[in-house]
């Protein structure tokens, strides 16, 4: 399966899970807001250039926004993490490996430590920006802080679960062939 087709399927899957499962779960507590869809952006291949990342982020956010009737909210957050992603990867992956041996960020390819740092930073960034935009409209500062912290924690839990449940089989890329 080509990268494009695979990622289109992934986007559809992530958006449906977010819209029809995570947004629809019975109300547990007002601080419990599960988000997982942006894992799609974390999983995009290394080979995608920065402009492509930005546009993909924009499209992902917009699709979710039209489902949740909040045009622009998730789009802004997605564009932000799509912009920051290459810098984080640059920091976390040893510079000698200019040719990445793996296709896309994954705990197997990067190692659990760097991958978790990568995921935590982007998740925190996504939620902080999202909550900031919500806070600009209403709510208190304390709400903003608590909701950012709790939703980051829950998202990390979901990301970990996803990574453990669905380990992506990955070809080890070599330059011998």
């Amino acid at each position, binding site marked *: 399966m080509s990268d494009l087709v695979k990622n289109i399927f992934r986007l559809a899957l992530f958006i449906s899970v977010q819209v029809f499962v995570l947004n629809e779960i019975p109300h547990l507590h007002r601080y419990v807001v599960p988000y997982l869809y942006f894992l799609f952006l974390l999983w995009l291949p290394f080979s995608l250039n920065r402009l492509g990342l930005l546009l993909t982020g924009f499209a992902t956010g917009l699709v979710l926004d039209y489902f949740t*009737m909040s045009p622009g909210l998730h789009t802004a957050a997605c564009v932000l993490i799509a912009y920051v992603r290459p810098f984080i990867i640059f920091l976390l992956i040893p510079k000698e490996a200019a040719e990445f041996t793996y296709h896309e960020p994954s705990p197997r390819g990067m190692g659990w430590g760097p991958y978790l740092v990568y995921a935590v930073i982007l998740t925190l960034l996504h939620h902080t920006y999202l909550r900031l935009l919500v806070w600009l409209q209403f709510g208190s500062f304390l709400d903003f802080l608590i909701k950012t912290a709790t939703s980051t924690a829950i998202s990390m839990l979901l990301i970990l679960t996803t990574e453990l449940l669905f380990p992506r089989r990955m070809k080890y890329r070599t330059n011998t062939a």
Partner: protein
Amino acid sequence: MRNIFAFIRRHFVFLAFVALQFVALWMLFSYNRYHNAAFLGVATEVTGSINKQVDKVDDYFHLLEENRRVHRMNDSLLNLLRPNFNVPDTNAVVRTDSVQVDSLTRYRRWLYRDAKVVYHTVNAENNYIQLNRGSAQGIQNDMAVISSDGGVVGIVINTSPNFSQVLSLLHTKSAVPAILKKTGSAGTVRWDTKDPRFLNLEGISKDVDVKRGDTVLTSPNTYNYPPNFLIGRVAAFAVDKATGFYTIKVQTAANFANIQQVFVIENLQRTEQLQLEQETEKQMDQMNKNRPR
């Protein structure tokens, strides 16, 4: 000039990032103000058709609850029927109205249309409900929406040809004029985003007699909502010492968590009422201008 192009080329990704952020934020803030956004109509059609398919499956999980609601509503309507009551006057005969054509059409004020919820949330701060009826079926903005057992749900804010979006009571911008049934004192029902089971009734001053379980109804003085529809019941209340008003917690009548069938209610005299209001305001302005100082 060359420098400018060089600058753009060097920082192209950053500039693209800024541009996309700008577009996103512009969409967000313009939507918050006007509840309208680019391609919203088309997008609603697309999301609506997807939601409709998913909802077909989802329906089966709520059938029991929905049946119970409809049965309860039928029960309350059956109790209102004329033949239930004895007429003390022996000359009076109970008769069923057999006129098929409603001769009072001209004076009808509220028109009910049925609709089905295809998507709804309760977990967000701004919750919307999507219905399977749109402008092609006569749904317009500002129509009231009530659930199948008569509890107030929200108001239509956006329509596409076959789907419409409803601003739920569980939305930070929702404000419904309400009264306490017992005393008739008026206030406003809002949501504090904390718990989807409870709304807040504001603007009731502390000299009003309030008890737990008191009924909160829609106000008769609103153009959007038909009067005396159930919003909820008082669950808790306390006096805010700073303002001298109650803060009243109202348990919602509609169960937002599994809302299914709804009625969309049109006020047929709305345009006339709004026109009258405008005319009155204009006249008052005139009077104020002409008044001798």
